[in-house]
């Protein structure tokens, strides 16, 4: 096994990467960088180019142009032993025992036989599958098999872990287990990149994330930064007519939502206290008044999928 590479500040850097299949461009001039020790979300609709990008990172398909740098290596294959990859299309040998499965994938990553087996036992024990260590995969439930799959991705203790849609196919309980597992891995100092189209997971887990749409980057940064890109809105709940509030400086628009619930689009520097005072002075009774927290879900719709939604 070649010497271990230093992880560096950016374990993963993608620079101007394009991937075309004939006339179809799956990934278009994509650039981003993942920092050491963070959980990095990779968001996009189905077909946005997530899997293709991850495959290029893993050196499974070569980019048409651009450069992928993994742990300082431009040929990602040379550092495969330090990277763990859970593909979206995943499966196991049905006739193989759980422990042997984990050990086999670890061995492919250069872990010596004895250690690989011990690691298999230990991980299964740790994740509550100790008693199934010698069971064949075909006898396990789907959730258990998925766990075994994940364990075989991390068995060789990789520095960089890339998970393609890791939550798909898991029930809510196991999704929670996986979330905890990802957080633990980060706490051990590992860097995790995962793709998803379920925003709740990304919202809870990611330090930073990347949104792509039709192969192009539409956003990269923290959740707060994403929220900052949105015009702030206030939510007002009242049985009375709120339209007089339009006279307050900084209030741009008032949109009716559900019954008695209104959305106030305001300028950044609008004085929220002035709006509240104006309402009280004009006999607009207030049942609720507050800043709206934009969910990643909304941002995702706007950034990564708005066009499709509107045309639908």
């Amino acid at each position, binding site marked *: 096994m070649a010497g271990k590479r230093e992880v560096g500040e950016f374990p993963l850097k993608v620079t101007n990467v394009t991937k075309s299949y004939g006339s179809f461009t799956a990934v278009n001039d994509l650039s981003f960088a993942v920092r050491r020790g963070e959980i990095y979300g990779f968001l996009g609709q189905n077909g946005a180019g997530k899997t293709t990008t991850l495959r290029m990172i893993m050196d499974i*398909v070569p980019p048409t142009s651009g450069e992928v740098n993994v742990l300082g290596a431009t040929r990602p294959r040379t550092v495969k032993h330090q990277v763990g990859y859970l593909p979206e299309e*995943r499966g196991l040998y049905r006739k193989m025992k759980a422990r042997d499965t984990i050990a086999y994938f670890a*061995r492919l990553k250069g872990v010596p036989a004895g250690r690989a087996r011990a690691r298999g036992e230990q991980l299964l024990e740790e994740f509550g599958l100790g008693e199934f260590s010698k069971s064949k995969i075909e006898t396990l439930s789907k959730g258990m098999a998925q766990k075994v799959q994940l364990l075989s991705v991390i068995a060789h203790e990789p520095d960089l872990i890339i998970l393609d849609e890791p939550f798909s196919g898991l029930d809510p309980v196991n999704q929670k287990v996986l979330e905890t597992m990802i957080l633990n891995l980060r706490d051990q100092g590992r860097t995790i990149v995962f793709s998803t189209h379920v925003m709740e997971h990304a919202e809870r887990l990611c330090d930073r994330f990347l949104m792509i749409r039709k192969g192009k980057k539409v956003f990269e940064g923290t959740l707060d930064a994403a929220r900052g890109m949105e015009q702030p809105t206030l939510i007002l709940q009242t049985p009375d007519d709120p339209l007089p509030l339009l006279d307050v400086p900084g209030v741009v628009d008032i949109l009716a939502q559900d019954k008695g619930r209104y959305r106030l689009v305001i300028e950044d520097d609008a004085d929220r206290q002035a709006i509240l005072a104006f309402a009280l002075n004009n006999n607009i009774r207030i049942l609720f008044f507050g800043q709206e927290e934009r969910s990643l879900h909304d941002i995702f719709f706007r950034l990564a999928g708005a066009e499709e939604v509107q045309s639908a």
Partner: protein
Amino acid sequence: MNALLQLITHEYRKYVFTRGFLAFIMIIPLAGAFGAFANKISDRASPIRHFVVLDETGEFIPRIDEALADRDAEDTLGVWDQYAYQWVSPNEDGTFPLEPPFAPGDPSPDRASQFKEAGGIDAALAAAKPYLKDGAPEVPSVRARYVRVGLPMDVPAAGDQQSQIEQLLPYLNGKKMLDDDRALFAVVVIPADIREGRQVSFWTNNLIASDLSGFIGRALGETLRNEAFTAEGLDVTVVDRIRQIQVSVNEIKADQAGGEDGAAARVRTVIPLVLAYTLFIMITSVGGMLLTNTVEEKSNKIVEMLLSSVSATQLMIGKLVGLALVGITMPALFLGIGYLLLTFFGADAAPGTAAEIIGAIKGGLFGSPLVPLFFLYFVLGYLFYSSIYLAVGAMSDSIQDAQSFVVPLTLMLLLPLPFLSLVIQDPNGIVARVLTFIPLYTPYAVMLRISAQPPFWEIAAATALLLFVVGYVVFTMGRIYRKGVLSSSGAPSWKEFLNLVRK
């Protein structure tokens, strides 16, 4: 390198360390042993056929009894000869220290009757006593296979033939038994006009076992012929003597220095045929394993997991090598065991015995380039065929998808089968030479030709051509494999496949 080794080990263990494979390895020698056992059993346990003769002429029953006695004498002689070959120590020159008719060899009816008159097995054993090897067992008893019995008590001997047969039918159908619980197998009816009609009736419930009816026909035919000779004024004993004149043809294979005996030479010719056949079976069956294996990995979606650790090329090489080793394991095991057995049992090869044949097998197998060639051609033929399978498997999401490719490929391999007999008949003829130079058929053609000492340049050139073509095919199929293994575009089409080959 380490990862490649892992892949190979994984593939190998997956097939070899399974109950199925071990069972398969056990089955072949077991089947052989069982065959030998069944042979012995059927010798021992073949039923005694009891039959009744209704003779309207009243002349033929003694003739049939004579024929039965002759037959028993020949059987007895056969048993003695086999025993003597095995247990009587021969002289240094290979002859036996016994006087005729006791010395084993000539199986003629004359010697059989002399043997019987000289006292049969008891006398022979007494004569051979001083020369018996240590631990010689008793001579196996000889049983008469056909026994003529008289009419059962409840069938009147004087009745008319029709009612006699009717009364015998329950015996033939197993509803009644003869004395001592013996079953009646057949009733032979000899009509009064047998000399003119030359036909007898044979009543039985078992038309499949035709051995007894054949025997009766031969015995009666012999009787009628002898009558005809006598009628022409010829002495039957003279005719018999003349009839026993025989010329034996000693086939000698010309290419062996000093010639080689027929049986041994034939063994040498059969071995390549067996090996070529084994080669075909191995290549197709291991190729099939590889196809299922590739499709399985694709449909189970394991392949991308693997590709995160190894390259597609490594994966492909790992599979090809792993399964090649699986394929080699079995013949290597059998050849190894076979060599030991042949060495162990073939130690003292007395002429004209089984040991000589064993020696010929051993010489034919291990004394010629056949075995190394077998493995060389297995590897080349396997790579040729399997790399195509691998590419097809990589393009298919299910076995059904792959099916449309597999059938034509197998047919292509089977295509020259009708010509193989031509290759055997004329190993250096035009068909043989043409087949030698068609890479897909080179392995089989060369295996079949090798004992006829074909020109060395032909074999070398054909093998070089095969090597080149295999290299090209593996390279091209490797490209298709790498492209196909991650795509999921449904069933591949020939058009698509050929397009990929051309690219």
